[in-house]
């Protein structure tokens, strides 16, 4: 792979991870949003694959496969099941409207670039130049959790936060040691699984997954 081609593919894949997180804020149908999250996971896998092929690192290419399976297929599949079980395919409840959410997300992207100037300055590789995108995706995931009152959307927010971290991991250091990587992956999988179990419990106990009902505990 030539360096120009590598930079193009890398920027495309990493950019797609950020664009999909904006799309999650923008789109309204829960099933569509779940597909977008799946695309985000696949784009993340593409980032790892591109770096792995360019740097001839077989381990990273294998991790890319794992990321594709986990974040592109399994976890979105779990979320899709939760969406289907709910019979509430449209998401309307949000604390702020779409233009305000997109504006806030743009602001968070700027914050991500501003805070990581010193980090990016450490190296001049194309990977590290794109590293703030991961921080931005994480912050947008947090925005989703704070502003949306539906259980599945908060699950997607948690997944986006983790996707952002994974992006920083691949761009910054071509991944962390494999043992840590496996630990992180299994923890993410377990957390997602339990969030889905809890969503089902919320549905049986509260008759829906609108989190505004969760307000019995207070001081």
């Amino acid at each position, binding site marked *: 792979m030539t360096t120009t081609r590598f930079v193009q593919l890398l920027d495309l894949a990493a950019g797609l991870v950020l664009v999909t997180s904006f799309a999650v804020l923008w789109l309204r149908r829960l099933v569509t949003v779940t597909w977008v999250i799946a695309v985000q996971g696949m784009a993340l896998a593409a980032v790892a694959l591109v770096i792995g092929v360019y740097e001839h690192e077989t381990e990273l290419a294998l991790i890319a496969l794992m990321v594709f399976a986990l974040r592109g297929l399994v976890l979105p599949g779990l979320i899709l099941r939760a969406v289907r079980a709910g019979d509430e395919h449209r998401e309307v409840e949000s604390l702020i409207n779409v233009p305000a959410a997109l504006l806030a997300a743009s602001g968070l992207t700027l914050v991500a670039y501003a805070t990581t*100037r010193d980090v990016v*300055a450490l190296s001049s590789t194309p990977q590290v130049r794109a590293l703030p995108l991961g921080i931005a995706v994480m912050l947008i995931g947090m925005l989703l*959790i704070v502003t949306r009152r539906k259980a599945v959307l908060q699950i997607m927010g948690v997944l986006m936060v983790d996707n952002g971290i994974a992006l920083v991991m691949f761009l910054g250091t071509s991944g962390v040691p494999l043992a840590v990587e496996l630990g992180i992956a299994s923890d993410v999988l377990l957390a997602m699984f339990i969030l889905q179990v809890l969503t089902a419990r919320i549905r049986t106990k509260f008759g829906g997954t609108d989190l505004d009902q969760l307000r019995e505990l207070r001081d």
Partner: protein
Amino acid sequence: MTPSIVLLPIVPAVVAALLATVGWRPTTMWLPAISCLTISGLGIVVAAHVVDNGPVTAVEGQFRADAVSALMIILIGAVGTVTSAYSVAHLRTELTTGTTTPQRARLFGALMQLTIAAMCVVVISDNLGVLWVAIETTTIATVLLVGHRRDRTSVEASWKYLVLGSVGVATALMGTVLVYFVSRHSSGDASTALNWTSLVERAPHLDPGALRVAMGFVIVGYGTKAGLAPLHSWLPDAYSQAPAPAAALMAGVLSTMSMYALLRFKVIADIALGPHYVRTMLLIAAVMSLLTAASLMVTQRDYKRLLAYSSVEHMGLIALAAAIGSPLAMSAALLHMIGNGLAKSVAFSTTGEMLFATGTTRIDGIRGLLHRRPFIAATFGVSLLALLGLPPFSILASEIAIVRAGVDDGLAWALAIALVVMLVIFVAVLVHALNMLAGSGDESTDAPGPAAHVTSLTARIPLVGGLIVAAAIGVTIWPISRLLDAAAEVLAR
């Protein structure tokens, strides 16, 4: 002979697997307490070895126990023993009254041991990535413990705990990944770039600007998990909804694990960035935690939430001590972790018996407890006094040490806030406790509950035992004083 630290997580992990397969039976229900006693014993052996011969390592340096680890292992073992031994009586009552099923009891026992195994990994892993994985594992296991009752409030609490907990811990992971990135861009072997010992060695050569960003994420992330304000909102919900032994384990030692992680990162940051960066962040969190705790304890109506905010207060005090950072302050912080751990685990375990006896967690739902349930009332009262810092308990000593260290350091304003807050909390808790314990105890005012509940000897022994150990450490510090000094030396700047 070098003690084998790898055994520490293996023992509780095996017990967890055994409980998960065999179930919670008369033959297996004492295994958790035995496993925790084993951990305490191993911890003492490790401590004796470490004080004389320096750190113990295993698995090519991936696992490492120094004086701080040894102290934490003993704390995990002690709090684990109290909570596991009390679980036996607690689950027996829940099973006989039908509030839980054998399946849930099996899950409960296995998850408690899994949490303890993961905490053992936290304190002995030299690799900060493995440390993160272990802390996230404790989050996942305890979420299911919080949801043990499966009613509306416990579902609500476990949801909030998992969402805020995962985001908090994820922030810490982002910080850890960035630390790894910064470390890889310094000189040194890439394979040890995430190991604490190697990070401390290369700290002077780490890029300060980039490390500052990384440390910001780490402190916010682990601070959230430790229950420091302003990101503590999950804590009172989780602690009040978790079954008493689980709440005791979480408040007694689990939140301390995140604080431990913070202290490890602080050592690296203090060398690389100078003391002011971490100190400022910890001071803000400490003062906010103290103020939040005081304001919510005064008007508190639920005794489990009262204890939960007491945890926010004590985490704030530990953060204050860490912000001061001198050797005296660090040994005070560590001693405070132990004092709080023992007293808090007894207090939270006792709330289980109180709930069984009175059927309510409301402070105004209980009157004259000392008259009707002298044992429960006395245990609860004494553990509250311990938490308030009365002699003979060690919290008094650690609080005095924090004040002395702070005065030496010129942090009079922060100490003034802390002292006022502690006074307010002292009065508030005393008033709440008097309302619950004193009075004639007219049974007819009780909410309906399993009134026939008798606190069994199996429940009494761990509660009294925990208080005796807590008092013993307060009366005579010498058994652990050398260990404390050695640990403070590792952490102080």
